């Protein structure tokens, strides 16, 4: 693929083709290395197109990095 795939959710260019349909040529699945969003080429354009992605669900890496941790990582102990 020559043109860059932009993540519809965080609009990062750090994306990749995750997989292709077992029946060749039907769809591809992409994923974003920044916000962990994944989407399929055959989904409606309000999922695949960054300009049409629901603004309520836009999410950046910075927002994720500031989000809560669940569950908390406990302090290390000796067995």
């Amino acid at each position: 693929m020559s043109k860059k795939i932009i993540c519809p959710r965080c609009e990062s260019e750090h994306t990749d083709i995750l997989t292709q349909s077992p029946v060749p040529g039907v769809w591809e699945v992409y994923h974003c290395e920044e916000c962990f969003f994944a989407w399929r080429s055959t989904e409606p354009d309000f999922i695949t197109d960054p300009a049409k992605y629901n603004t309520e669900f836009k999410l950046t890496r910075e927002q994720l990095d500031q989000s809560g941790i669940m569950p908390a990582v406990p302090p290390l102990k000796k067995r």
Partner: protein
Amino acid sequence: MAYQDLRTYLEALDAEGQLIHITEAVLPEPDISAAACAITKFGDKTPALLFENIKGYTNARIAMNVHGSWCNHALMLGMPKDTPLREQFFEFVRRYQTYPGKVEERDSAPWEEVVIEDDINLFDILPLFRLNHGDAGFYIDKAAIVSRDITDWDNPATQNVGMYRLQVKGKNRIGIQPASAHDIALHLKKAEELGEDLPIAICIGNDPLINTVAAMPILYNQSEYAMAGALAQEAYPVITAKHTGLQVPWGSEIVLEGKILSRVREGEGPFGEFTGHYSGARRMPVIEITKVSHRRNPLYEHLYLGQPWTEVDYFIGINTSAPLHVQLKEAFPEVQAVNAMYTHGLVVIVSTKVRYGGFAKGVGMRVLTTPHGLGYAKVVIVVDETIDPFNLPQVMWALSTKFNPQYDLVTIPGLSILPLDPASDPAGMSPKLIIDATTPQAPEKHGHYSQELRDPVSTEAWVEKLRELMPKA
């Protein structure tokens, strides 16, 4: 006889007219979730859906709405499909109280037929799809997930089988939401304190009972398999998965084995949840899958969640109510029945005998302090023993006429609630409410209740007579 795998259960549903085969070619999105949402519009007797032709896949099949009606729930218990909900509830409670049931360890299982250890690509094996438009990706939301305490590995009592949402993030990489209050979070904490990974088995396409138990609020030291045996009223078959040494259902279609990576957290979500709202995104643990085993042409099963009522509400209705009923009755034998079917028990309706003024409020307080109630019950409605808590018109009548806001409303501030409750503020905290809609008993004496309407004397006999005369379908 109980169904030992998903295939035989689907065959039984088919024979009872409770399965629709969808043979037309469908796109993974939005067709599958749209159809699974659409079937919920047809009421509480709907069939399961089996998608047999999914674009881009050669042999994939996806089962939806498997638990999505009271008919299917009755058939799961081996009862006639038109069994009234109340009867299903009391039969479920009866079997629950026979815990522990028998567990049968077998030597081999159909899911061992195909094994993949190299170049795992979950997308080739599972027909994954986006469920709701705002979801972060492709989730597995109906898997029975098995883990153990690595510091007490040989103690089967602490083995846990639970259902936690899984976000497939890579070919063999999955995000998991082990909510802090759940058993798997205890296992993860013990492993992470030692800096070790937590072995895990993810079982997909199961018999209907183990999924019901995996989503059920049972106690930490209770065994899900022994509970499944109790509910099945026969030995529940399991097998030890060789890669991890965890006990998994014999009847699963697909078993993914791997580990939760120690001390790793990574962005996960949002995901449309059983609250009818999205969860938001947080940093959560990550699983690496190292072995996949499955039956030939495996069936993939998925749970539909949407704005209630949808499949998830049938799925976590009676199995939430039954433990609460039993725990409540231990403290108050006067309790008749508990309906905790609304959003996993955020609203709970209790029917009870009332011994004296204030008694019903005490019963309501106890609901709030049961293990499940602590994290869920937010509004408790207490009604008289004559009211069937599963009959909402009767409950509404009690609320309409027995309830006086001046005397019958108790608000308790500062209690815990699941953080997914969108009303909680901050997330995880909420005041709670008890509504006493019982008839006041001495020394309480507000209102005028001495002239309640009752059925005419021979009504019951007429019910039976008319039942016989009713036109047969």
